[in-house]
């Protein structure tokens, strides 16, 4: 179903894979941040990612909470994806977003990447006669798809390392290289980043339950819950977040408050998503099916999201 409506490659656009807060209208429009970091895509369709695992790990650029990060399962293989709504075993649900070129600076800012440096990357690829994703994929292939090595090669090529996320290539349906923002520690060890807001990133990718239960001294627990809501709202659009919710304990101390925020946000989520993804209800229905706000209620039930 989704494969039939996969849009053709559009010149002068940026195809970005959202796997955290970019998977919901609430997150794309920055509703929890007063509209800061708001992004409007010109196209969106569901994808499932392979050779990837995700979790909360990176101190956010926007507050004292942990944001999502992505890792390769096999560092010798590229991150890949295919347009689909049903995630198979080992696959992650995510959202492909196509943005007009004019949103480049906002995309960079949102990912904690210098906007000028991102503009330079795009121009550099253009001078080579290719899309940014294709150029980055060439770089990654030379490094045998080891993203840490890719990050160092990108640093060598550009002299810049992002204090936030680094744009990495993700091969979509074997034919187009999309961009996916990954937090890499790609400087030499002596020059390693200390982490945003003075905090060091935890060594492991955390599940949503683990992050919500973290000690609140260093983290803004309320902001953490809002961020988790931005991610979980993807389930309203039938995007699989099973990997994130696995291990959540029904009845955990924070779960009632998270559910309350999720329920309230879910009511407005379908309309926000249509707006953020420039979709009309008919195209939305063909790609995502019927919005399911009941996931917000079922959140704490075993087997969520079903």
């Amino acid at each position: 179903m989704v494969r039939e409506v996969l849009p053709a490659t559009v010149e002068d656009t940026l195809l970005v894979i959202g796997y955290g807060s970019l998977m919901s209208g609430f997150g794309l429009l920055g509703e929890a941040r007063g509209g800061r970091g708001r992004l409007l895509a010109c196209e969106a369709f569901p994808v499932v990612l392979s050779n990837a695992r995700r979790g909360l790990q990176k101190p956010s650029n926007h507050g004292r909470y942990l944001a999502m990060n992505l890792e390769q399962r096999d560092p010798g293989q590229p991150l890949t994806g295919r347009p689909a709504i049903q995630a198979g075993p080992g696959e992650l649900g995510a959202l492909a977003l196509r943005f007009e070129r004019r949103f480049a600076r906002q995309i960079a800012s949102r990912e904690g990447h210098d906007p000028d440096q991102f503009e330079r990357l795009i121009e550099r690829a253009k001078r080579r006669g290719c899309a940014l994703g294709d150029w980055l994929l060439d770089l990654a292939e030379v490094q045998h798809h080891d993203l840490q090595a890719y990050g160092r090669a990108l640093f060598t090529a550009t002299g810049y390392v992002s204090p936030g996320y680094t744009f990495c290539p993700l091969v979509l349906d074997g034919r187009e290289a999309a961009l996916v923002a990954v937090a890499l520690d790609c400087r030499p060890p002596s020059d390693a980043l200390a982490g945003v807001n003075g905090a060091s990133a935890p060594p492991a990718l955390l599940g949503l339950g683990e992050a919500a239960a973290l000690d609140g001294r260093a983290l803004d627990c309320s902001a953490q819950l809002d961020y988790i809501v931005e991610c979980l709202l993807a389930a309203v659009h039938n995007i699989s977040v099973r990997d994130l919710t696995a291990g959540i304990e029904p009845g955990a101390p924070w779960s009632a408050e998270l559910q309350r925020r999720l329920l309230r946000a879910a009511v407005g989520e379908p309309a926000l998503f249509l707006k953020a993804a420039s979709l009309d209800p008919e195209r939305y229905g063909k790609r995502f099916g019927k919005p399911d706000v009941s996931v917000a209620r079922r959140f704490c039930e075993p087997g969520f999201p079903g």
Partner: protein
Amino acid sequence: MAAAFKSIAFELAPELIVDLKAIVESYDNLATLRTDDPERHRLKLYFAEEAEHDVERLLAALAQLMPIRRVGVR
């Protein structure tokens, strides 16, 4: 002076009532949902007069997501 209360009656498919109840309860003290006529799946939302605008906005948003059929306002 006693607070003025209002109510809105509507019908909703029974399988969706649990979702509606959870959503209404997530808006702390905004409104109370009661079953009015279980055989006709008729429900009633009770709320303070000053909450009417918020309740109407919520119902308008919910009407985009579930087939809520209003049957009267008192």
